[in-house]
């Protein structure tokens, strides 16, 4: 049963990903990405990451994607003209990514995973309690820095999008 859920979500994620890079209208790409994110959140849940599953939906799909939608609304319908100026870009890129995919697939063959060293308490694994315990004790410093990072990003965004008096 879990396997079926896994494969359905995986298929949706891959289809969404293909949609992201294929649609010509950016609005459709954004919506495809939302589909990918929802699929991935299901995968997170399968992996016992309850808090991450929730955050993925609320923050990532809910806030960041909405931000993208607002920008698309601001910029209006976009036109991607013609064939572009870089002639070799397309097939060279295809070559590289296929090679990369092949390499990653080769890496996964015969891989030997490291076994978990100490038996963790699986009853609280992935819960809010476990996340809180980690964030506020061991990883307090990165947590605080991340909050400053958000502040900086907000200030930066306000500054960059202020109205200019001269043209442009």
């Amino acid at each position, binding site marked *: 049963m879990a396997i079926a859920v896994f494969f359905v979500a995986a298929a949706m994620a891959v289809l969404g990903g293909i949609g992201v890079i294929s649609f010509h209208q950016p609005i459709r790409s954004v919506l495809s990405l939302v589909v990918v994110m929802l699929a991935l959140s299901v995968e997170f849940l399968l992996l016992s990451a309850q808090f991450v599953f929730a955050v993925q939906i609320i923050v990532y799909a809910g806030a960041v994607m909405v931000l993208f939608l607002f920008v698309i609304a601001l910029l209006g319908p976009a036109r991607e003209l013609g064939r572009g*100026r*870089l002639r070799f*870009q397309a097939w*060279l*890129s295809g070559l*590289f*990514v296929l*090679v*990369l995919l092949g*390499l*990653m697939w*080769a*890496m996964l063959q015969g891989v030997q995973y490291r076994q978990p060293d100490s038996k963790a308490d699986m009853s609280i694994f992935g819960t809010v309690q476990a996340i809180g315990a980690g964030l506020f004790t061991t990883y307090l410093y990165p947590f605080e820095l991340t909050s400053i990072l958000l502040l900086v990003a907000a200030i930066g965004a306000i500054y960059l999008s202020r109205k200019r008096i001269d043209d442009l």
Partner: protein
Amino acid sequence: MTNQTLALLILLFPVAGAILLAGRGWRLPRIFTVIIGPGVVWASFVCVLALFSGKAHGDFTYWSWIKSGSLDVPFNLLIDNLSIFMCLVITGVGGLIVTYSVGYMEREDDPSYARFFVYMDIFIFSMLLLVLAGNFIFLIVGWAMVGLSSYLLIGFWYQRHSAVVAARKAFVMNVIGDVGMILGTFVLFVNLHAITYSGVFQAVPHTDNGNLELAACLLLVGAVAKSAQLPLHTWLPDAMEGPTPVSALIHAATMVTAGVYLVGRMYPIYDVAVYAHGAVAIIGAVTALFAATIAIVQTDIKRVLAYSTMSQIGYMFLAVGIGAYAAGFFHLLSHAFFKALLFMAAGNVIHAMHDEQDMRKYGGLWGQMRPTSISFLVGSLSLVGVIPFVGFFSKEQILGLAFSKPNDSLALIVWIIGAATALITGFYTGRMWWMSFWGKPSPQRPVEHPHAPSLVMMVPVGILAVLATVGGLLQTRALGSFGPSLVNDFLAPAVGPLRWEGDWSEVVIGLSTMVLATALFLAAMRIRPWSAYVPWAQRMLERKYYFDEIYDASFVRPMDAVAGFALRGIEEPVIDAAVVDTGLLARAGAASLSLTQSGYFRNYVLVFVGGAVVAAVILLLRASS
């Protein structure tokens, strides 16, 4: 104040003067230069007098410069009677000439005026170093610096092309001499293992004659170049491009006598190396005759004096060449007096004539510039060798000693040549005097009423005229073995005593030569132009026996060809190309590499991903091996 300090002060005063003037003299008022320029030379003179009166002598070492194996070169000064004698001449006559040039060079602008005295002070310092040095290395240092000063002073008016060419010619020939000196020093050091005079002279008796002959010949090359003797003489007449005080100081009184000093100082070597010693005498005698004949046809007053200098130094070489060292140095002293006098008096005339030096345009100056004319006459009679002037005593002593030297046929030969030269000297000197100072003023005279020279220009001339008149009293050996012989006695500790005694035949020879020379002097006024009879002789003399042309063809042109080839065949295609092409290569490389900077964001990401692929491959290979 110890003798050691005094000796060092003699050298330090001119150097300090040069540095002071070079540093600030350009910008300060002229009075500063006027006081410092000649002042330091006189200060040196005072120190020399102190040493002279204190009968100082010694080998003073100040510091040890090089100590390497058996090569031990100290900075030491040798104070003996010979070096004091030379210092007296250099600082005394030099002081008079530098003072004279305060007036002669007054028309220069301030920076050039200071520059002149800087160069003069450097020259005085170099010459003093040359005669005071106690070892061969510093002798060569002084030697080379004197050559440098000569170059700087000959080419003083560097905007003039002829001056620059003359300066270069003088310097190149001096360098030939320098090479001879250095090689001679090498030979001495290799065989005698000593570099100081005391060390070398002590080792001379124990050394093989062949090596000493070789060293003596090499040192002679240096002496010949510096003293403008045959065959390295062609630079001296051209050196007259420099200002007249320069000609007086360097090319009459001091620098060109350095060769004589060298032979005198090295007398232990030359006493043993008889072939080289004989060569000295022959070179001197031949040069004396050669130069005197050329002086007959010169029209530039300074050129006549230049060839006359060449000739008189030939006499000095003759003297030291036959072993009469003290007589040679006495002639050096008297020549310094009367030749400097002649040059400076000529300088008075040139200055008054607005730099006109052609004697044919003079004439009749006796009436208009009386004191200068009298001084010039005193100098001329001294040059000819007329009693009672000092020239008689010194020159006739040399000729007498050459005549009376026992068992030496070479001495007799050179006496004949010397006597002939004395007669010709009378003739050209007379020609010079009558043409410039007597008769009616030439219609081509640039200045109708020449101004009298200023006091600062007349007083040194006057002093030298007095010295030329009474200087003979220093040594009257030419008139017989009575009377003072101060120079001989003074120099005996340094160069050895007089090696043979003359007799009354010396005196007769001397007096008869004087009479004949005086006769020619007087006759020069009336001799008809003889060139009409032998035009080829006139041409040959005017072309200075074609020496310049021969040197040009055999040395200058081949060197020009070699240099031209080196420029066009090697320098430009190979070396320049290597340097320039390296730059071009770097630029081409950069240009081709900059093509990767396309400016497109997607290209950069592609390179990024390519790098990731490579990293993944490496990781895989590492993991699988």
